[in-house]
């Protein structure tokens, strides 16, 4: 089984760390993993994305030309990546930021107002976690247990106090159903 995941949005939305957390959790699950960020100055202000591969076999290429699961947190990313979703794959959209929907019929799309929900939870920065929740619920990419461990490993210590809240956010995402 190979999970290929792309996360994309504005710099500052936690796109990169969301990817790292997934890769870390995958590693704890005993999988082979890779994580590749877009990098450089375009990160600031511009868009950022990261590619994660979680696989039973060694990861051939960390560079994705397509992916089974894509999370988008802004409009340019939706426009760029919609066509990248594998047939039958899923796309998860932060609908509080992206008002457009996908046009493809051969993929499954989920719209979650993650930023809005996160704001209501008191911290906009949880939006990425909410979206990851949905991904895990749909695809079983990583185990929830190791996801939590991954949070501890990836986040700097000064943010560890937030982790219970983040797990809360994850659950919210996992259980979110479009209305």
């Amino acid at each position, binding site marked *: 089984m190979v999970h290929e995941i792309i996360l994309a949005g504005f710099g500052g939305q936690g796109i990169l760390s969301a990817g*790292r957390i997934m*890769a*870390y959790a995958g*590693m704890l699950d005993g999988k*082979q*993993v*890779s*994580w*590749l*960020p877009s*990098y*450089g*100055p375009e990160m600031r202000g511009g868009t950022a994305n990261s590619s994660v591969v979680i696989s039973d076999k060694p*990861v*051939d*290429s*960390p*560079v994705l*030309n397509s992916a089974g699961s894509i999370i988008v947190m802004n409009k340019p990313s939706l426009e760029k990546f919609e066509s990248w979703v594998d047939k039958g794959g899923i796309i998860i959209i932060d609908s509080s930021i992206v008002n457009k929907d996908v046009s493809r019929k051969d993929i499954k799309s989920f719209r979650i107002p993650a930023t809005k929900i996160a704001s209501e939870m008191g911290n906009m920065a949880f939006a990425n976690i909410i979206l990851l929740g949905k991904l895990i619920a749909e695809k079983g990419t990583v185990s929830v247990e190791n996801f939590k461990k991954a949070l501890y*490993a990836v986040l700097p210590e000064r943010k560890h106090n937030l982790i219970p809240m983040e797990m809360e956010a994850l659950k919210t995402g996992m259980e979110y159903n479009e209305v």
Partner: protein
Amino acid sequence: MGQRLLMKGNEAIAEAAIRAGCFHYFGYPITPQTEIAHYMAKKLPKVGGVFLQAESEIAAVNMVYGAGSTGIRVMTSSSSPGISLKQEGLSYMAGSQVPAVVVNIVRAGPGLGGIQPAQCDYFQACKGGGHGDYRQIVLAPSSVQELYELTVEAFNLADRYRIVVMILGDGILGQMMEVVEFRDKEEIADIEKPWAVTGHGGKRKQNVITSIHLDPAVLEKMNQNLQDKYRLITENECRYELYNSEDAEVFIVAYGTVARIAKSIIEMAKNEGLKVGLIRPITLWPFPQEAFDKVKDRAKAFLTVEMSSGQMIEDVRLAVNGTGPVYFHGRMGGMVPNKFDILAQIKEIYSRHINS
């Protein structure tokens, strides 16, 4: 095997260097390799080492020249434009046989170019960016694990041959995270350096590190010694991976990140009944002629894939020496080769040379 960590390629290089006994790092920031410096800046002071941000790449390489001349293990790292600036220094180090490890996490050029991954500094690394007849060992890892292992090895090779070893990576390798498994203890070649300048202390003759010899006969002799050394390295240190080579008819030749992409293509090709193998040079210099000799009898064609306009292909053609067709697939500017495109090209090669 010891600790398993999820690590960025750049950080793995830095950690590997420290494990290899390199406690001195001199560098100047440039994307996409700056994490090496950040890691060193954090870790080296804690192990009694020295991290120094130089005023430029030129100063950095010359600090390395100075430190290496005293016999310690030392490293610098940069990316393409910065490596261009180091060429004079590298030529000096070659001429005076000062060992060191130099990392080039290649970005797309020419000029300021971009910061996305590329392999367009192959010529510079393998043929001669600097002036004069000299060589440096060029290692091309293709995973974070290999970045670690080859970095350790680089220091051993550098000391063993009194030579500069360059690690040639690209932005993907530098920036990606993978699991890396560290050995509990590194094998560090224990090499005497009686030539090092450390102050003679009145106990031995003066040591001098120099590359100038105004008498051409002397300078020729010095060059002959270098060439002898290069021959020895060519004989002993060629490294490569042959993948799916037993019954392959078409061989992709690729290194670094691109070799990984090649492996996924080989899987796809298998599903379509195409027998595709991979020659992955690990040492770009010395170039592994042997790998080509081994497959010469069954290889009907070669396809060199590079993130460049075609540089390694010259070495591939020299290695094949007219005994088979050599094709090329290249992307430039930070674009990464697409496996579907390459597969299509392989099918075309098949139809021209095998199914025709």
